[in-house]
């Protein structure tokens, strides 16, 4: 029976509905100490003093630790995936409100919490910078010097650079955009902005470190256990095999729980006190850990008389906050798709990752692409309206098609842009008459589509073990945080070995056991790990055939595995172990022009169509219908795939209509679910989610990643629909009722007062 393509429930459903699924959140170890973090109250300042005396004296406190204590253990306690810029605890300087400055350890977390209130610190405050465009000027410097990690060849030129907040500047040049703009019939220019928001996984950040003999075990809610192992080993100057990282299920990740978050801190503390240490953040503290980049995107297009876009220039400023995290990769790897899924001969992109005195920004479901699509699809819609061309017709004229070169110079293959777009248009019934409302309640509709390239180059390794009774076990470092990766891989193993997916055992990340994986991020797992799993299962089958030959069985006979083992070893014994590494081919882009003929192994395509109702008296927007479509290649588990598409769109709905971190003097003033509004069950419009089936020829059984595609089109489709309904354009996320009302009143010549 074919396994791939079956819609099956996740393997772990029973554990999840009975409350017995294993999360790091629950972990308790004998002798464990709980850490609570004392955080900076100023956005930018030199630390003058930290007074921990009163905290140390509180009964039940085991110890209080500052950056100086960490430095006794780790002289260079700076970590990060792209830059080694983030201290485990602040050393000379604090760079954002909420930055960890000291930690209290106690056997009871309530006592640790109480002791944190007894700590005080004095700072010499430095003026702070919050805006990504202002940060281009070196008037206020967040870091004195750039410290790129040695691992990335293309960041080496930044080493030692000072007098700048630009962590990375990325440039792409194709054709001659300036000349083409000068010669274009029409030129349009707009600037769009996005807000700072965050992942808010319901299992907040949590890590536990347990020191052992010549080893350190880290139990953590993390999406990239292999990276954690390598980075912790680097910090301690150890070989990788002294660090063991174990990850059970995650209570949500969304790109937040990547790279190092609490792991270096618990590791250092556990080594200092030689006891297990657990740090579990509160929901409020998550607002000071990692966020989504605010952006300012200036986009300019030249359009020929016949409606073809002939030139586009893009300047994207990414507000990376106080520490680089993976921001430079976002600026670059998503930056090159900033011109959108359009066939444009002349393109220029400048993408800048900026330091500022905000909570750091990293990857959040889309790796920067939703911010880009927000801008280029709003812009594209504005052009169409200005030219009096139907937005669907205008897009259709300009969409990039397979076989044509993308802005990066890579010829597009296996990207179902046209198919996704056609499916949206058909579902929306774009050609049919549309009821536009009357009086104070008006209706409109909008459409938007985005394109993303998977991050490259990255590696995944898998092991498939066939036991002597024929049962199969998969060892994979992919972290199942709800996306259903365990189940998808079980289907792939089942397909190759001819067994039911439900009978395949999937062993969760444990770096002593599961082999390397770059990380569960950027929709890469199904493709990269999926290919590794397929190859490992095939390798296991080859090993099994070798056993059959050793047992003297004739080639080509179809003995069941358990018979082969029994014939070979005389009893139920032995294993057939298959392994495989998968790393797709890749050509790095030219550093000057960003051109490469092989910039990514696969493209993701996602779009949305919406119908909205706008109350012209209040600015209230109601989404009446949300249609999402995405290229999913050939789905491995269609039911779960559809839920991914739907969940991504719902998450983006929050980022579009309500979610925003509000700052006052660098302090987040709405750091709770009471004041930071995420979508609830009452906020979900009628939705349709369409998996556009295509084939990713290089993917496992034709599949590709899908976890982010549902986010791409939602925000601009809504802005476009609002414009369609009431003729005003919102240029900045989130699209609150206030923003719409302000735009309506400005258009009517009766602008509302600021504040």
């Amino acid at each position: 029976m074919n396994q791939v393509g079956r819609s099956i429930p996740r393997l772990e459903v029973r554990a999840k509905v009975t409350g017995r699924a294993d999360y790091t959140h629950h972990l308790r170890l004998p002798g464990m100490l709980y850490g609570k973090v004392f955080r900076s109250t100023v956005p930018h300042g030199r630390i003058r003093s930290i007074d921990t005396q009163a905290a140390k004296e509180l009964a039940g406190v085991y110890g209080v630790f500052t950056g100086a204590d960490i430095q006794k253990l780790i002289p260079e306690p700076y970590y990060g995936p792209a830059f080694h810029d983030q201290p485990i605890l602040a050393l000379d300087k604090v760079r954002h409100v909420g930055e960890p400055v000291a930690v209290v350890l106690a056997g009871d977390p309530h006592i640790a919490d109480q002791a944190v209130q007894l700590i005080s610190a004095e700072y010499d405050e430095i003026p702070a910078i919050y805006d990504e465009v202002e940060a281009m000027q070196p008037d206020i410097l967040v870091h004195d010097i750039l410290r790129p990690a040695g691992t990335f060849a293309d960041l080496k030129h930044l080493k030692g650079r000072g007098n700048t907040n630009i962590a990375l500047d990325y440039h792409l040049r194709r054709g001659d955009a300036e000349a083409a703009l000068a010669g274009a019939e029409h030129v349009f220019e707009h600037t769009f902005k996005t807000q700072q928001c965050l992942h808010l996984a319901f299992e907040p950040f949590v890590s536990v470190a347990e020191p052992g003999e010549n080893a350190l075990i880290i139990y953590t809610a993390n999406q990239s256990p292999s990276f954690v192992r390598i980075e912790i080993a680097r910090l301690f100057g150890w070989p990788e095999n002294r660090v063991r990282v174990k990850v059970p299920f995650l209570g949500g990740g969304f790109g937040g729980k990547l790279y190092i978050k609490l792991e270096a801190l618990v590791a250092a503390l556990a080594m200092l006190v030689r006891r297990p240490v657990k740090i579990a953040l509160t929901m409020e503290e998550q607002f000071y850990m990692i966020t989504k980049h605010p952006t300012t995107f200036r986009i300019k297009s030249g359009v020929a008389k016949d409606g073809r876009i002939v030139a586009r220039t893009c300047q994207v400023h990414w507000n990376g906050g106080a520490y680089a995290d993976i921001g430079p990769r976002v600026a670059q790897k998503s930056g090159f798709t900033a011109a959108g899924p359009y066939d444009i001969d002349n393109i220029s992109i400048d993408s800048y990752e900026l330091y500022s005195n905000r909570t750091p920004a990293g990857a959040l479901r889309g790796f920067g692409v939703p911010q880009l699509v927000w801008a280029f699809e709003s812009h594209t819609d504005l052009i169409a309206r200005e030219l009096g061309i139907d937005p669907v017709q205008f897009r259709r004229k300009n969409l990039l098609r397979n076989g044509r070169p993308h802005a990066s110079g890579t010829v597009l293959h296996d990207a179902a842009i046209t198919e996704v777009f056609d499916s949206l248009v058909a579902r929306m019934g774009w050609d049919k008459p549309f009821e536009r409302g009357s009086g104070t309640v008006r209706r409109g509709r909008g459409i938007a589509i985005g394109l993303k390239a998977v991050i490259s180059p990255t590696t995944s390794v898998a092991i498939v073990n066939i036991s002597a009774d024929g049962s199969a076990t998969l060892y994979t470092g992919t972290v199942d945080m709800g996306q259903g990766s365990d189940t998808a891989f079980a289907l792939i193993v089942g397909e190759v070995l001819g067994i039911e997916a439900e009978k395949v055992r999937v062993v969760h990340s444990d770096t002593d056991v599961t082999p390397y994986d770059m990380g569960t991020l950027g929709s890469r797992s199904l493709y990269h790990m999926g290919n590794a799993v397929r190859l490992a299962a095939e390798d296991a089958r080859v090993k099994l055939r070798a056993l059959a030959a050793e047992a003297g069985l004739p080639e080509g006979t179809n003995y069941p595995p358990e018979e082969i083992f029994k014939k070979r070893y005389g009893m139920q014994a032995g294993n057939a172990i298959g392994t495989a590494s998968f790393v797709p081919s890749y050509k790095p882009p030219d550093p000057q022009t960003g051109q490469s003929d092989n910039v990514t192994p696969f493209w993701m395509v996602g779009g949305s169509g919406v119908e909205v109702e706008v109350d012209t008296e209040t600015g209230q927007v109601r989404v009446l219908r949300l249609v999402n479509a995405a290229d999913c290649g050939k789905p491995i588990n269609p039911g779960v795939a559809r839920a991914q598409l739907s969940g991504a769109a719902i998450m983006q709905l929050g980022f579009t209509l309500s979610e925003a971190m509000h700052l006052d003097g660098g302090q987040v003033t709405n750091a709770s679910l009471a004041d930071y509004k995420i979508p609830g069950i009452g906020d979900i419009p009628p939705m349709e989610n369409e998996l556009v089936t295509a084939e990713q020829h290089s993917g496992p059984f034709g599949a590709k990643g899908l976890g982010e595609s549902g986010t791409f089109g939602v925000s601009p489709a809504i802005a476009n629909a609002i414009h369609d309904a009431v003729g005003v354009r919102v240029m900045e996320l989130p699209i609150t009722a206030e923003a719409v009302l302000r735009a309506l009143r400005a258009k009517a010549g009766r602008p509302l007062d600021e504040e």
Partner: protein
Amino acid sequence: MTARIINFTLNGQKVSTAIEPHRNLVELLQRFDLFGARESCGQGLCGCCTVLVDGKAVSGCLYFAIWADGKEVATVEHLDAGGALSKVQQAFIDCGAFQCGFCTPGFVLMTHQLLEAHPDPSDDDIRDYLNGNLCRCGAYPEIIEAVKRAAKAT
């Protein structure tokens, strides 16, 4: 703070323990190795810590442990005590009504309470009743479907 002895019924069993008055119900349950109620937002807004006390849903993060004295406390773990899943749990599986699963026990318990009040709930009943439970993975459409399926599966 001094611990106090409390006696209560936990998932049908009479139990007794000493607990300090500042601890909440989630911490109390963890002492009994019950982890289905999870503290997430800490403000009674997300529903991840939902527990039934005398048959009524409460937020375990806001409910002092000592208030459980003399009460009947039921957690998600009681639903399959006999080995079989409840019809709500089965419906959540059949409809794929969760992704990461962290909020799921809260939704499952709240759905049981919803179906007691509204055996045949409308969409509005469901949205109204489950408005205090949040799901960051956005499995809401599947959750609504699961509630309806559970209602039919009597």
